[in-house]
């Protein structure tokens, strides 16, 4: 006796009962032959089943419980911006780690000839297989992350999701958006191009304009009042060592708190 479930459908003979043209018969037979061997559809069905079973474990959301979905569904994309930022961050991290194999943060030539850093970026863009693609992915991930994080903040603000008991996570979010911007700024300086250099100069002067502690901040962040190897080195270490650790840890805490408290839903 077979444990296989029985149903009415004639699994073997159904194709004869159809009026199929020869081409359609061949087409279907070929695809079914492939499917029996590769079993892609079976695995996709397992995934689908898994998705529904996991979903059954989730508590009913506020909108489901009170049947608000028909009024509220058009806001739902905005609730994806946090995940979107995280995905952009992961993409930037992976592409950045790969770029790190080819980039060198050296501003060695001070005599007007191109620096090592700039040359390494040119190498990535011009010589390296898929280098142009890799750096483009990294840049776009950064742009998307800044935009998504900002829109995520607007969504949280305008749906009142920052209110009690979620004030702490709002504050962590403020820190995270600042870190994102610092990530962007330090990365902007790394190619050590004209744009990078003068953006760095602006940074130094903005630091110096801070009352009382301006000179100290400029020394700490830029390694002096004029741009030098120290500046580039600091930007590099901030970009690939300090910020990744701090930001990753804070994102983990940020998401962990959302996990514990649940998503703030509209009322």
């Amino acid at each position, binding site marked *: 006796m077979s444990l296989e479930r029985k149903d009415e459908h004639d699994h073997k003979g159904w194709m004869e009962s*159809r*009026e199929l043209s020869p081409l*359609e018969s061949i087409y279907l037979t070929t695809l079914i032959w*492939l*499917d029996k061997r590769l079993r*892609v559809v079976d695995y996709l069905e397992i995934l689908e089943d898994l998705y529904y079973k996991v979903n059954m474990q989730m508590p009913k959301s506020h909108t489901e419980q009170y049947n608000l979905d028909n009024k509220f569904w058009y806001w739902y994309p905005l609730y994806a911006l946090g995940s979107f930022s995280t995905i952009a961050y992961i993409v930037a991290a992976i592409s950045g780690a790969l770029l790190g194999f080819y980039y060198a943060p050296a501003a060695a030539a001070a005599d007007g000839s191109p620096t090592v850093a700039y040359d390494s970026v040119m190498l990535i863009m011009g010589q390296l297989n898929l280098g142009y693609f890799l750096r483009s992915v990294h840049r776009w991930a950064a742009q998307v992350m800044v935009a998504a994080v900002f829109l995520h903040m607007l969504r949280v603000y305008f749906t009142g999701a920052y209110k009690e008991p979620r004030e702490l996570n709002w504050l962590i979010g403020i820190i995270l958006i600042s870190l994102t911007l610092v990530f962007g700024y330090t990365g902007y300086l790394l190619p050590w191009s004209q744009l990078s250099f003068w953006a760095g100069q602006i940074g130094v002067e903005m630091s110096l304009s801070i009352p009382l502690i301006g000179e100290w901040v400029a020394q700490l962040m830029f390694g002096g009042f004029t741009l030098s190897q120290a500046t580039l080195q600091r930007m590099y270490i901030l970009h690939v060592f300090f910020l990744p650790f701090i930001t990753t840890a804070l994102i983990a805490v940020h998401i962990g708190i959302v996990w514990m408290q649940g998503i703030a839903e509209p009322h």
Partner: protein
Amino acid sequence: MTEDQSGVPTTEAEATEDAGRSREVVVPLRVYKTVTVFSTLIAVFSVVGGFILVDVATNRASAPASEIDVPVAIAGIGLILLGTVVYAFSTRFRTEEMGKSKDDADELSDNG
């Protein structure tokens, strides 16, 4: 084959081929999934592979006309066309209940 009340034999597969309407073939759901998944996979790989071949044949569209590898370029274009045809062909298959409700009714909406 089943028979409806008027005694006219109809096939379970309503393979309609009315003028102006594209042919539809009703298949079991499981087969429909197979068609969707594999035709999409074949189409994607064919089209991407075709573009790669065209790129190779024309040195990324930078080769002068005299240095284009014609057989490879034609093979590439052919592969792109093949992917397109496979994908387009797959659109005629559907399951029960997937048609427009007026077409899925027992009677055809041809005013008798």
